[in-house]
């Protein structure tokens, strides 16, 4: 964690502690939020935290009583810098500070190791955005997610590449993160099932900016489609370098790059790029337009997963209400009966904590903006 992040969270906690003492009689319930608030993915991390914050502010404004006593929810925001190592440190810090549940982490690579700590502490963890299959497959009863996982997303991408785009020679690139690697693996499976062929698999990192060498290697093998498992800071320059190397292949990606920042970074070379994202397009989400309005009024443009962070928090609040308690064990028991209609759609959990029947939508950049191609359920 950066020094500044640390300073801010210390200040934040100090302020919270101060507040808690001031209004007597109102019990304070702490809810954690973890996302990268420093480093390359800060814009998406802040977005998640704001989604959670909006839900908490709304319920506090409306007033919440548990067990007949008024309570107030407090958000404790932590920064894991998208680093698995830091993720465990801040997870332990949140547990020690007595949070009753955690909305986070943003990345699969951070959500997976932290899940063990939350499970040991017996508090619920909701990742609004980690899509790696492994996150909920580790067998922890405390791990939940509110969006389709990579098995669902990878299957859609692989199918789409072979059946809809008619790709014959597919190359894969992943950023070696739990998310990128997991997604590429799922796409590989789906492509093979659909009868397509993977002609090359290349690797990069989630900090790289130069992809010319691996793109040249892919060009040598005459790929007609490249699937990238990774985030927008890499996808942007990658699209640019594909163009300058004269690569004609279609770039296909997933939710990590399906955002406005990708278009900003790739500029004109973003045109025609296709990416999937779990869930429905915001405009067609049941509560999407209303959420967008409320969010923008407070925090500005939605980056990516804020609606999911918001819904995850809503699901948590609903479970607290059903349990009529903020005890972690009672919240967990109530969560299994979740049947919530959030802004992103209906949320019910299967035995593993995955959302059932998650939809995946495909988008393409046209005229400098993401436009919806189709939603696959």
């Amino acid at each position, binding site marked *: 964690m950066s020094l500044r992040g640390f300073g801010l969270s210390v200040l934040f906690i100090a302020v919270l502690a101060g507040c808690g003492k001031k209004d007597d009689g109102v019990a304070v319930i702490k809810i954690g939020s973890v996302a990268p608030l420093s*480093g390359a993915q800060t814009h998406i991390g802040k977005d998640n935290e704001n989604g959670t914050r909006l839900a908490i502010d709304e319920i506090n404004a409306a007033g919440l009583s548990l067990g007949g006593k008024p309570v107030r929810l407090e958000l404790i925001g932590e920064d894991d810098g998208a680093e698995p190592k830091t993720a465990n440190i801040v997870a332990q810090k949140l547990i020690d500070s007595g949070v009753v549940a955690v909305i986070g982490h943003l990345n699969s690579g951070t959500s997976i190791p932290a899940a063990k700590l939350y499970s040991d502490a017996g508090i619920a963890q909701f990742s609004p955005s980690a899509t790696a299959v492994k996150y909920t497959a580790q067998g922890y009863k405390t791990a939940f997610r509110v969006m389709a996982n990579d098995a669902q997303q990878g299957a859609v991408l692989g199918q789409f590449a072979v059946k809809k785009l008619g790709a014959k020679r597919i190359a894969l690139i992943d950023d070696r993160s739990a998310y990128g690697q997991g997604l590429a693996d799922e796409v590989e499976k789906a492509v093979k099932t659909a009868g397509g062929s993977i002609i090359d698999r290349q690797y990069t990192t989630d900090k790289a900016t130069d992809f010319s*060498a691996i793109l040249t290697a892919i060009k040598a093998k005459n790929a007609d489609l490249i699937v990238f498992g990774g985030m927008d800071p890499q996808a942007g*320059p990658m699209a640019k370098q594909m163009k300058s190397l*004269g690569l004609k292949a279609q770039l296909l990606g997933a939710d990590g790059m399906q955002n406005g920042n990708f278009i900003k970074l790739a500029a004109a070379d973003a045109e025609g790029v296709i990416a999937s994202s779990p869930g429905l397009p915001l405009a067609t989400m049941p509560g999407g337009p209303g959420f967008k309005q409320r969010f923008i009024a407070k925090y500005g443009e939605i980056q990516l997963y804020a609606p999911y962070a918001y819904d995850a928090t809503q699901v948590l609040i609903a479970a607290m209400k059903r349990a009529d308690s903020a005890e972690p064990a009672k919240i967990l028991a109530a969560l299994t009966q979740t049947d919530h209609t959030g802004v992103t759609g209906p949320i019910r959990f299967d035995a593993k904590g995955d959302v059932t029947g998650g939809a995946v939508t495909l988008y393409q950049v046209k005229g400098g903006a993401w436009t919806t191609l189709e939603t696959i359920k």
Partner: protein
Amino acid sequence: MDIFAQQLVNGLVLGSIYALVALGYTMVYGILELINFAHGEVTMIGAMVALAVMGALLGVNPDLPGIMVVIAGALVAIPACMLLGYGIERVAYRPLRHAPRLAPLITAIGVSIILQNVAMLVWGRQYIAFPPILPQISFVVAGAQITAVQLFIVALSIAVMIALWFLVQRTRLGSAMRACAQSREVASLMGIDVNRVISTTFIIGAALAAVAGLMVSAYYGLAHYYMGFMLGLKAFSAAVLGGIGNLGGAVLGGLLLGVIEALGAGYIGDITGGFLGSHYQDVFAFFVLILVLVFRPSGLLGERVAQRA
């Protein structure tokens, strides 16, 4: 063969960027035997300032010709970095001129962290996009595709190296710099203002860093507050590979490191039958670095430095 040529071009462009930054490391090391770890961050500040100026200009009039906007960005970023380079030397290194060698190394790392955090506060943590204002022209040379920006990067680093060589070997300032490199005490006895020579070295290095930062952000289309870290590390390795303190060595080391990385990433997967993938490109590059240093500890073009009393 096309592919080999293309990988060579990829490597040369990447290597030219490393070389431009490596020159800054090597110049300072040549005179002070100090590794200026803040150099990578000066590169980042150069890119950030240029992008801020360009953004402001385009905000006023989006129809300004792209090349003019980039030149305006450079004209602000270069003096800004020169000032920064001077300031860093004055505040963080000069007071420690006679302290043990490790002390200025620590302040260098400190300055680097401070600059990163200042940039984060000023420009935010997100990636800043380079405005799409440069013409997208590309040429095909020997089967390899090369863009105008890439050609410019290679040409510029060659030009800068020649200019630097001329400065060091053929001008009064250059002989003063060489004298200071041999012995600061004797140089000052000969009437050379050592502090001034050192300040000038930092200022020139910072100007190079500003240019390199602008080129990097134009090439990759982005800039962010910690872009200087990895770039600085690679450029420092390039300087060591070529023989730190030697200008030609910095360029040779930079180009070599770039080419090794590109060829490594491009072929390692096929050579090892998929056992080692392209994510091992850095391992490959640093393996070569270690190998060179085992056989030539002072780098490819470095001279053996006699132990001083």
